[in-house]
């Protein structure tokens, strides 16, 4: 191969790589509190101590949300820092307070859409932080609703001012998510499992979730209570696990 030809091939290859690197689609991000947020804890899925809960609001304030392509895939069980090869930062989700009971037809809360280089986004990083403004300034999670047991009902408001930092692996659910192709879009989801907060009567007492969950007995008098979420794994990606730290 002559030198000019080699140069042309090199240039062509560089242009090809440049084009591939520029291949971009869109990534939509949703939050989902699942049926327990939307419909409540209804038999047989009562709280671990037998309360029926129905929520008027489940407010969560989010910040620092990024979707990552990681290699190797992030092992949330092992924890540590993901090795990202591409990162999409959702700047729009800076101090965004959402209500997990106020959803679209698919039961999700739309958070944001961002341009994303093509590839598989197999990790998500996000935080739950105290709101800086609004009716619940200073609180990161607020659950408002009604609890019923043995025919008696109480209204409750549970608040948390803790900051939780989540680092999650791949979304796990009915379909794999996060595959962005050039010119097309994909979706990811931050999933909140409220049964880790209240436990579930239809699960075994020895289930780790029930062992650690708060239950509702402590709030049976109704009214407003500050709750401690340390050690609870509320945030997930579908059924997939997240490493969590509380501040």
């Amino acid at each position, binding site marked *: 191969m002559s030198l000019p030809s080699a140069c042309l091939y090199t240039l062509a290859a560089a242009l090809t790589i440049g084009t591939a690197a520029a291949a971009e689609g869109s990534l939509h991000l949703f939050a989902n509190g699942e049926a327990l947020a939307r419909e409540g804890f209804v038999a047989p899925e009562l709280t671990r101590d037998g309360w029926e809960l129905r929520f008027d609001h489940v407010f969560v304030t989010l910040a620092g949300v990024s979707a990552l392509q990681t290699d190797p895939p992030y092992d949330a069980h092992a924890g540590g820092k993901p090795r990202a090869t591409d990162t999409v930062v959702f700047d729009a989700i800076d101090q965004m307070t959402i209500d997990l009971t106020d959803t679209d037809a698919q039961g999700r809360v739309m958070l944001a859409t961002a341009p994303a280089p093509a590839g*598989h986004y197999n990790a998500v990083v996000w935080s739950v932080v105290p709101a800086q403004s609004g009716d619940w300034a200073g609180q990161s999670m607020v659950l408002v609703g009604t609890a019923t047991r043995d025919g008696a009902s109480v209204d409750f408001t549970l608040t948390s001012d803790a900051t939780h930092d989540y680092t999650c692996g791949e979304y796990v659910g009915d379909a794999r998510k996060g595959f962005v192709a050039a010119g097309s879009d994909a979706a990811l989801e931050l999933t909140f499992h409220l049964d880790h907060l209240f436990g579930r009567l239809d699960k075994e007492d*020895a289930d780790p979730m029930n062992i650690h969950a708060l239950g509702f007995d402590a709030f049976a008098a109704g009214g407003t209570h500050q709750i401690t979420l340390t050690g609870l794994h509320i945030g*997930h990606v579908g*059924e*997939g696990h997240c490493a969590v730290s509380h501040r």
Partner: protein
Amino acid sequence: MLSAIVKPLIAALLLAGPAAAHGAFVDMGTTEAVAIQARYDTGALMAGAQVSVFAPDNPAQPWLTGMTDADGRFVFVPDDRAGQWAVQVRQAGHGAMGYVTVGADGAAITVTASRTGLSWAQRLLMAASVVWGCIGTALYFRRLRPAEPA
């Protein structure tokens, strides 16, 4: 008249299927496989859990689906597509992913990650070496002759 000829002919053709065989053969060989064992984080085995295997070139659609056995185990043999294979295991709202990378030569299997389950998996993926021998070639077939019919 035509019917009298055609009907016996069709019957003869039908009988010329498996029933007309004089023996059977079993092809045997060795290969590399991937074995998983799924557990909850309590250590309990995920028996009868739903398994989906995704090939490298079509990661959004399952290449294979199945179910773990009573010991939470599932074994599959990837084809010759090199790259990252993904395995998803789910049961009763708990799920996790594991990954194995198959080399370009189709032989090398390395576990690249595992354990992302909500409440399972001390270990999701173990590379398996269900490889017995395989001396010389990846596939060595040995044909067994059936016993002569009595």
